[in-house]
C-alpha cells in the first residue's frame, strides 16, 4: 500500500511533491498502521487522485495568472487561466459533436453502471449492519459431530452466560409466529421471544413506553410485549394510548410495554412482536438440557477480543459442560460466527463479483475513449502545430487537452450519477432476496466520493495518452510524427489487445454463472412442483386429536372440489429451506451410544396420500394408508439417503429404527422414497424420516393440492374451505410450488442476468473499440493499400491483410484474457453450482464468441481498405 501511495504521489505537481511528499507518506503510514483496510485504501486513492488534479488545476491557474498579468492583461483579463482553458475546451468539444457524444455516452455507461453497483456494495458491505458494534456481534450455535449446526439448549445458554469471559452480553431468541386476535381479525404475526439483553445488544430504543428488562424476563413476571413501529402504525392504527393495553393470542395475553423506534428492525426477519423468552423458562423443554428448543444465541464480543479467542473460550466452556453433563453434552461443540458472515455472507461474493465485472466494463469504456481521444489528437495535429508556431507552449497545449478531458469526465460522471440515481431503486427492487441494508442503498457522500475518484482515475486512464500526444505534437516541428508514428501504433495495439482480454474475462465469468444456473434449473427436486399449490396452516389449538381431525377433514373436503386431483398434508414441505424437527436415530440392534454421538435425521409428519400428491417416487415398500393410525404399529417411511446409509446392502423395508423424538420411538420401516430437496434446490439431501400424521399430530402443516388447472385459480376456493372449518384461523399463506422453485433460482438468475448484461456491454464496447482502432489503422495505411492495388494485388488479398492484422491482435488478447480468467475464475468457486471453475465449455465458447465479434468488427475497416481507389490514395498527402 505504501508503494501505491508513493506512486500516486507522482501525480502531484513537483513543487508540492517535493515539499510535502515525505511528510504525507509518513502520515499515511501512521494512519495505515492504525486502521489498515480496503476502506482506507479506497478513500486514500480517491482522495489523492482528486487532490492531485486539484493541485494541478491550482498550479495552472497560478501560472496562467502570472502570465496573463505580464503578457495580455488587456484580452479577456477577468477570466483566469484554467477557466479559459475550460471555455476553450467547451468550444472545441462543441465543434466535434460526434466525438464528444460518443465519449460522453461511453463514459456515462461505464461510470453509471459502476456507481449503481457500488451504491449497493456501499449499503450492504461498507456501511455494515445498523447496530452499535456490528463487527463485534456474533451468532453462537451448538454442533454435534454427526448433525451439523443446531440451535441452542436453554440450560447450556444460561451456563454460557455465567461462564464466558469473552462477551459483554449474550441474548437468545426464538423466532416463530403468534396468532394475535386484533380488531381487524386474527393475524399471524412474526414473533421473537428474546431475552432482555437483546435490545441493548442491537441498540434498539423505544419510541413510546419502555423496552422490557431483566425483571420482565422471568417466568413469574407479568407478561409484557414490545412491538415494532411498523406494527403499531399498521395494526394498532397508530393508537397514541396503546401502551398498557393488552395484546392477546388464543393462549397468551401480553401487556404492551413499548413501541420500538421506527428505524429498528432485526433484519431480515421483520419481527413485529417481541416478548420475554424468560416467560418460558419453566417450560419442560427449556428445563431439559438435551432439548434444543429453537433458540438462537447472539452475543457481543468484548473490545479487543478476537473471533479465535471467543471460539476457544466457548469450546472450553463446552468441554466443561460435557464433563458435567455427559448424557446431553458429550461431544457437543459451539460455533461462533460473525453477524456479517451469516446475514450477508453469500451476497458478499456476489456483489464483489458484480463490482469487479462492472469495473472491467469501465476499463473497456476508458480504452475506447482513450482511442477516440488519440484519433482526435492526431486529427488536430495541424491545429496544434499552428498554435505551437504562434507561441503556445507544450504546457498550454497539454492543459487544453486536460481541460477537454475534464469536461468530458465531468459531464460523463454527472450523467452517470443521474443514471445511477434512477437505476439503483430498480436494482434493489429486482434483487430477489432480503439483504440487510439493501433497502437503504442510494447515493450518499461515500458513493459520491467513490464516483468522483473513479471518474478522476478514468480521466487519467483515457486522457493520459492523448494529453502526452498533444504535448509531443506541440514540440515536434515535423508534423508527420506523432500519432502515426511507431509509438502511436503500439498504443493502439495495446488498447486493442486490452479490450479483447478484458471482454474475455467478463464473458468467462458470465458464462460460468450461466452454466451454474442451467445446471440448477435442470436439477431434480425429487417431486413434481407444477400444478401444485401449498397452503401453510398454523392452528392455535394445541390438542393433538383436534388437529388431526381438522387436517383430515380439510384434506377430505378439498379433494372433492372441482379442479382438484388430490390433496394431502405435510409438516415440512419440500424446498422449505429447513426442517422443523430433527432427531437422533439408531437402527435397531446397533450398539447404543449417547445421543450427541448419534447421526441425526429430519423428522416429518405426512398424511396418507402425501407422496402421491407431491409426486414423490416410491423406491420400495408401500405408502402410508389410513389404517396407519394411533392404534396400529408405529411406522415410518425413510428417504434413500437414510436407507443407503443405514442398510447399504439390504432392503430397508421391514427393519426397525429408533427415532428419539418420534412418537413411540421404535418405528417399523414400511417404505423407502426417493430423496426430496428439503433444504432448498441447491442443498444435498440428508436423512429424513416420515411418520403418519395420525400417529403424531401437530398443529402446523402445509396442505398440498394437486390441481388439473392453473393452481392459482384454486387458491381462493381452497382457503375458503379451510377457513370455514376453523373461523379463528389467521390469514393463511398460499404459494404455488413453482414459485418456491423460482425463489430458489431467483438469485442466480439475477446475478447471471446482470453479469450477462455486463458481458454484453463489454463485448459491445470492445467491438466498437476494436473496430475504431482498425478503421484508424486502415486510414493511416490507405496509401500503402493504394500502392499494393496499383501494383496488382487482388482486393481480396488486401482484405485478408487487414483481417490478419486484426486476428493477430485478437489472438494475443484472447490468450491474455484466458490466462487471466483461469486465475480469476477460482475466486468464483463458492458461487458455482456443480460447475468446475475451469469449465471446458465456457473456456472454449468465450474465445470463439470474441473471435467472431472481432472478425465482424474488423470486417468493416477491412472492406474499406479493399475498396481503396489507388489514384485517390496516392494523391493523398
Amino acid at each position: 500500500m505504501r508503494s501505491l501511495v508513493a506512486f500516486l504521489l507522482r501525480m502531484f505537481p513537483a513543487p508540492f511533491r517535493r515539499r510535502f511528499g515525505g511528510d504525507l507518506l509518513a502520515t499515511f503510514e501512521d494512519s495505515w498502521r492504525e486502521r489498515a483496510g480496503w476502506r482506507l485504501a479506497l478513500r486514500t486513492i480517491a482522495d489523492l487522485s482528486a487532490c492531485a488534479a486539484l493541485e494541478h488545476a491550482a498550479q495552472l491557474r497560478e501560472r496562467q495568472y502570472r502570465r496573463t498579468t505580464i503578457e495580455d492583461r488587456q484580452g479577456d483579463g477577468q477570466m483566469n487561466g484554467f477557466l479559459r482553458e475550460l471555455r476553450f475546451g467547451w468550444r472545441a468539444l462543441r465543434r466535434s459533436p460526434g466525438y464528444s457524444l460518443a465519449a460522453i455516452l461511453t463514459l456515462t455507461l461505464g461510470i453509471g453502471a459502476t456507481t449503481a453497483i457500488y451504491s449497493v456494495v456501499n449499503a450492504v458491505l461498507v456501511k455494515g449492519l445498523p447496530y452499535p458494534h456490528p463487527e463485534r456481534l456474533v451468532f453462537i450455535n451448538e454442533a454435534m459431530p454427526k448433525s451439523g449446526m443446531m440451535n441452542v439448549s436453554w440450560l447450556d445458554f444460561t451456563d454460557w452466560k455465567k461462564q464466558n469471559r469473552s462477551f459483554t452480553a449474550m441474548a437468545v431468541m426464538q423466532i416463530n409466529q403468534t396468532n394475535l386476535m386484533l380488531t381487524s381479525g386474527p393475524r399471524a404475526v412474526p414473533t421473537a421471544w428474546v431475552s432482555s439483553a437483546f435490545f441493548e445488544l442491537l441498540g434498539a430504543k423505544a419510541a413510546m413506553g419502555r423496552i422490557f428488562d431483566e425483571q420482565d424476563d422471568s417466568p413469574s413476571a407479568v407478561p409484557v410485549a414490545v412491538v415494532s413501529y411498523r406494527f403499531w402504525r399498521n395494526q394498532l392504527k397508530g393508537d397514541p394510548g396503546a401502551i398498557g393495553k393488552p395484546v392477546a393470542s388464543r393462549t397468551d395475553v401480553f401487556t404492551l410495554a413499548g413501541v420500538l423506534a421506527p428505524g429498528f428492525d432485526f433484519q431480515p426477519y421483520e419481527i413485529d412482536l417481541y416478548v420475554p423468552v424468560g416467560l418460558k423458562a419453566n417450560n419442560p423443554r427449556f428445563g431439559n438440557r438435551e432439548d434444543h428448543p429453537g433458540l438462537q444465541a447472539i452475543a457481543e464480543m468484548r473490545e479487543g477480543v478476537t473471533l479465535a479467542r471467543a471460539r476457544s473460550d466457548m469450546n472450553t466452556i463446552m468441554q466443561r459442560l460435557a464433563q458435567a453433563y455427559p448424557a446431553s453434552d458429550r461431544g457437543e461443540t459451539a460455533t461462533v460466527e460473525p453477524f456479517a458472515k451469516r446475514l450477508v455472507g453469500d451476497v458478499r461474493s456476489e456483489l464483489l463479483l458484480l463490482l469487479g465485472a462492472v469495473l472491467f466494463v469501465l476499463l473497456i469504456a476508458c480504452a475506447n475513449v482513450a482511442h477516440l481521444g488519440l484519433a482526435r489528437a492526431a486529427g488536430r495535429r495541424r491545429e496544434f502545430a499552428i498554435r505551437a508556431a504562434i507561441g503556445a507552449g507544450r504546457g498550454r497545449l497539454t492543459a487544453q487537452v486536460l481541460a477537454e478531458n475534464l469536461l468530458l469526465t465531468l459531464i460523463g460522471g454527472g450523467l452517470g450519477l443521474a443514471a445511477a440515481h434512477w437505476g439503483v431503486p430498480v436494482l434493489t427492487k429486482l434483487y430477489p432476496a432480503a439483504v440487510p441494508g439493501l433497502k437503504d442503498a442510494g447515493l450518499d457522500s461515500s458513493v459520491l466520493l467513490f464516483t468522483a475518484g473513479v471518474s478522476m482515475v478514468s480521466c487519467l486512464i483515457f486522457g493520459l495518452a492523448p494529453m502526452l500526444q498533444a504535448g509531443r505534437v506541440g514540440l515536434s516541428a515535423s508534423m508527420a510524427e506523432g500519432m502515426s508514428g511507431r509509438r502511436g501504433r503500439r498504443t493502439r495495439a495495446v488498447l486493442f489487445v486490452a479490450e479483447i482480454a478484458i471482454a474475455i474475462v467478463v464473458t468467462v465469468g458470465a458464462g460460468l454463472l450461466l452454466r451454474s444456473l442451467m445446471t440448477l434449473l435442470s436439477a431434480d427436486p425429487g417431486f413434481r412442483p407444477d400444478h401444485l399449490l401449498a397452503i401453510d396452516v398454523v392452528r392455535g389449538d394445541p390438542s393433538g386429536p383436534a388437529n388431526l381431525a381438522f387436517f383430515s377433514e380439510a384434506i377430505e373436503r378439498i379433494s372433492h372440489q372441482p379442479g382438484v386431483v388430490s390433496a394431502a398434508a405435510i409438516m415440512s414441505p419440500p424446498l422449505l429451506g429447513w426442517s422443523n424437527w430433527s432427531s437422533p436415530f439408531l437402527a435397531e440392534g446397533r450398539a447404543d451410544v449417547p445421543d450427541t454421538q448419534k447421526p441425526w435425521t429430519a423428522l416429518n409428519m405426512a398424511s396418507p396420500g402425501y407422496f402421491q400428491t407431491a409426486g414423490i417416487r416410491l423406491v420400495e415398500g408401500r405408502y402410508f394408508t389410513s389404517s396407519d393410525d394411533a392404534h396400529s404399529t408405529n411406522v415410518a417411511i425413510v428417504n434413500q439417503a437414510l436407507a443407503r446409509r443405514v442398510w447399504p446392502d439390504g432392503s430397508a423395508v421391514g427393519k426397525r429404527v429408533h427415532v428419539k423424538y418420534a412418537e413411540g420411538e421404535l418405528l417399523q420401516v414400511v417404505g423407502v422414497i426417493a430423496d426430496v430437496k428439503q433444504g432448498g434446490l441447491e442443498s444435498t439431501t440428508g436423512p429424513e424420516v416420515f411418520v403418519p400424521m395420525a400417529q403424531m399430530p401437530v398443529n402446523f402443516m402445509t396442505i398440498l393440492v394437486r390441481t388439473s388447472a392453473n393452481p392459482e385459480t384454486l387458491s381462493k376456493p381452497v382457503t375458503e374451505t379451510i377457513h370455514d372449518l376453523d373461523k379463528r384461523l389467521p390469514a393463511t399463506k398460499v404459494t404455488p410450488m413453482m414459485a418456491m422453485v423460482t425463489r430458489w433460482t431467483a438469485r442466480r438468475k439475477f446475478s447471471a442476468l446482470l453479469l450477462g448484461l455486463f458481458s454484453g456491454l463489454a463485448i459491445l464496447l470492445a467491438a466498437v473499440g476494436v473496430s475504431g482502432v482498425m478503421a484508424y489503422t486502415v486510414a493511416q495505411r490507405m496509401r500503402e493499400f493504394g500502392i499494393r492495388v496499383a501494383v496488382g494485388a487482388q482486393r481480396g488479398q488486401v482484405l485478408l491483410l487487414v483481417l490478419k492484422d486484426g486476428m493477430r491482435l485478437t489472438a494475443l488478447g484472447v490468450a491474455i484474457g484466458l490466462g487471466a480468467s483461469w486465475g480469476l475464475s477460482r475466486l468464483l468457486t463458492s458461487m458455482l453450482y456443480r460447475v468446475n471453475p475451469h469449465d471446458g465449455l465456457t473456456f472454449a465458447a468465450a474465445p470463439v464468441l470474441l473471435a467472431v465479434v472481432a472478425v465482424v468488427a474488423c470486417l468493416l475497416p477491412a472492406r474499406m481498405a479493399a475498396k481503396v481507389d489507388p489514384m485517390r490514395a496516392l494523391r493523398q498527402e
Partner: protein
Amino acid sequence: MSEHFSPEPLKPADFHILLALAGGPRHGYEIMKEAEAESGGRVCLEVGTLYRILARLLEAGFLEEAGEDGRRRNYSLTRAGRRALQAEAERLAGVVDLLRERRLLPRGEA
C-alpha cells in the same frame, strides 16, 4: 499575504486544524487525529486533503514549520493564525448568543 487579520469565516476543516495546533506544535498525523476527535468525527481528513490545506494555511501565513522529528515536520500557529482562530471563535460565540436569544439553543449549555 503575510500577517493580516482574517474577517472571513474559516472553513470547518481549516478551523479544526488551527484548533488542533492551538495546544502546541503537532505533525500531520496528530493534526488529523485531533481534528477528527474534536469535531466529533465530522472533519475526517484523508492525507491528500490534509496536506493541501496545510499548504494553503502556510501560504496564508497562519502556520509555520516548527522543526522535524526525523521522519516529518511539525507545524505551529503563527500570530496571524492564532488571531484568525480567535476571530473565528468570537464569531462562533456571537452565533451561539444569537441562537440563544432566538431560543434555538437552551441556555447555560456550551
